[in-house]
């Protein structure tokens, strides 16, 4: 298992042209000017902004059972004799919860928990990857073993086992549990990168220049790994959100707090699809897909920043 097993999208850092030319790079020619990256980041930004505005504008009490009329379709539509109203623009579900309020409360929760888990996972992954790559030897053996083992285990299933027995996990516990399965990618990528950079000329030079291992890691190596960092963070966030939504759809996790996954679970349990109440499952799905798509665009854009050969072809 050598170079071939690095992250499937990220392969190498930009290989510098050997010839020298004094071409000034304007922003448009900078590698960071990447359509996918910018599109993903801006749509995600707009979404978050919209949710924040919604938080202050929309009545969040509407997210609780019985706060609204039952089975109301979105505004302008008709369902079993009821016509949607502006009071509940996205409709309501069969327990009288307002869909807009559910999304406004649920989506940030999913995003935040996924992001928190990804951050924890990334920090752990980077630290482990760095230590394994830089220190080598026993540390490397142990880290590699742990990574190889946990990577082969579907996180969802382990969390199902844990959650089935200990159902009352709070926000932070949940994020911590999710992060158990989001550090491996970062560990692998950073270990591989550090391993190759350790032999690179500028790290050797830094050692000859009396730089401490800390300086070498964070001042010499880290800046060059920024694209990988962002790419991993977004992948980790999607993965964590996905896993959590998965658990919620199965009926695990804190079912009382409205979140997108819980809403989906309710919709499935109540046969929303068969009853033709599409807004009940389609709206949370659409929001989730939008989140995933933005995160993916950012990640893919980042990979292209890191590996210019992927840009066109």
């Amino acid at each position, binding site marked *: 298992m050598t170079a071939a097993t690095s992250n499937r999208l990220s392969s190498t850092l930009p290989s510098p042209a*050997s*010839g020298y030319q004094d*071409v000034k790079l304007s922003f448009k*020619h900078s590698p960071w000017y990447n359509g996918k990256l910018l599109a993903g980041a801006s749509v995600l930004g707009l979404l978050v902004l919209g949710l924040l505005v919604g938080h202050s504008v929309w009545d969040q009490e509407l997210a609780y059972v019985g706060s609204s009329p039952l089975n109301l379709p979105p505004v302008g539509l008709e369902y079993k004799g009821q016509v949607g109203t502006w009071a509940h623009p996205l409709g309501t579900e069969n327990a009288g919860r307002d869909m807009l309020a559910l999304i406004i409360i649920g989506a940030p929760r999913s995003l935040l928990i996924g992001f928190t888990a990804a951050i924890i996972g990334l920090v752990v992954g980077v630290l482990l990857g760095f230590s394994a790559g830089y220190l080598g030897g026993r540390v490397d053996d142990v880290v590699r073993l742990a990574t190889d083992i946990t990577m082969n285990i579907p996180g969802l299933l382990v969390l199902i086992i844990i959650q089935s027995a200990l159902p009352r996990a709070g926000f932070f516990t949940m994020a911590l549990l999710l992060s158990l399965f989001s550090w491996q990618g970062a560990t692998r990528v950073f270990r591989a990168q550090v391993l190759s950079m350790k032999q690179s000329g500028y790290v050797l030079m830094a050692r000859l220049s009396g730089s401490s291992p800390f300086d070498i890691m964070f001042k010499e190596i880290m800046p060059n790994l920024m694209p990988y960092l962002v790419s991993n963070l977004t992948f980790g966030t999607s993965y964590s959100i996905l896993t959590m939504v998965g658990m919620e759809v199965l009926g695990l996790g804190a079912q009382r707090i409205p979140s997108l996954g819980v809403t989906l679970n309710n919709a499935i349990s109540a046969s929303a699809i068969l009853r033709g109440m599409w807004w009940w499952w389609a709206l949370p799905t659409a929001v989730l897909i939008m989140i995933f798509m933005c995160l993916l665009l950012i990640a893919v854009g980042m990979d292209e920043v890191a590996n210019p050969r992927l840009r066109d072809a």
Partner: protein
Amino acid sequence: MTTDQVMTIQNLSVEYPTPERTVFAVNDISFEIKRGEILGLIGESGSGKTTAANAILRLLERPGRVAGGQVWLNGETELLSLPEHEFRQLRWSELALVSQGAMNSLNPTMRVRDQIADGIRAHETNPAALTKRALQARIHELLTMVGLPDRVYRVYPHELSGGMKQRVGIAMAVALSPALVIADEPTSALDVITQRVVAQTLLDIRDRLGISVLLIGHDIALMAQLADRIAVMYDGHIVEAGPVTEVLKSPAHPYTRMLMDSMPSLLERKPLVVVDEAAKLEFSHYLKPPLRFVEVAPGHRVAQFD
């Protein structure tokens, strides 16, 4: 029609359009390669020598493109205007390549014999030569010719050393007795003794098969050992060309002279002429296209400078 010239390059130019300006990597170069000779195309990095070879082989990488000129094969076929499928037929059967990266020029997941065979299969028209037995005999013969042991027939590239890989590359290139082999820095990644063995192999092949070689390189000393004639490139131009003995004995262009003066050798311990980037850039003042050439000795042409 028989001609003494295997290849004639006329006013070849290659440009690389960049957002700021168009760079001419190869600028209006002309030379010819005679039958059975080794022509050394020598230049430092960025001189355009490899780009010129790629243009002839029609392997330019985007966004580079031929901006003008003609490449005549055997005085009868113009290569650059040939339709793709017709040119593909000429590849390898008439025009072969020994590539630069000795370590990486063989497919790691294919046996050596299959990599030699697929070139033959793609172009051999005589069905009798394509039987399994005939192919096997032919590949063995090729391997022997470049001095490789029989076991190479069965192995995968990673089991070979750099020098052996490069000799496989030569065997592969001459498999169809092409008119011309373009050897792009064939020994630059090799050790000194290995380099000599590979160079010997190249000379042997030329002597036995009469194949012409366009040898691309940066090492004057190696060119002195191998080439019959050399052409010196600088900044996309050919500044001087002629028989190797002539050019190296009495270099006429200041750039060639500078190259000779800064060249360390085992022949004598002498103070080297120190040149820096600024001094090197000075030479570009001599290059005002179109260059005019003066013949200082029979076959020895020098771009005019003043």
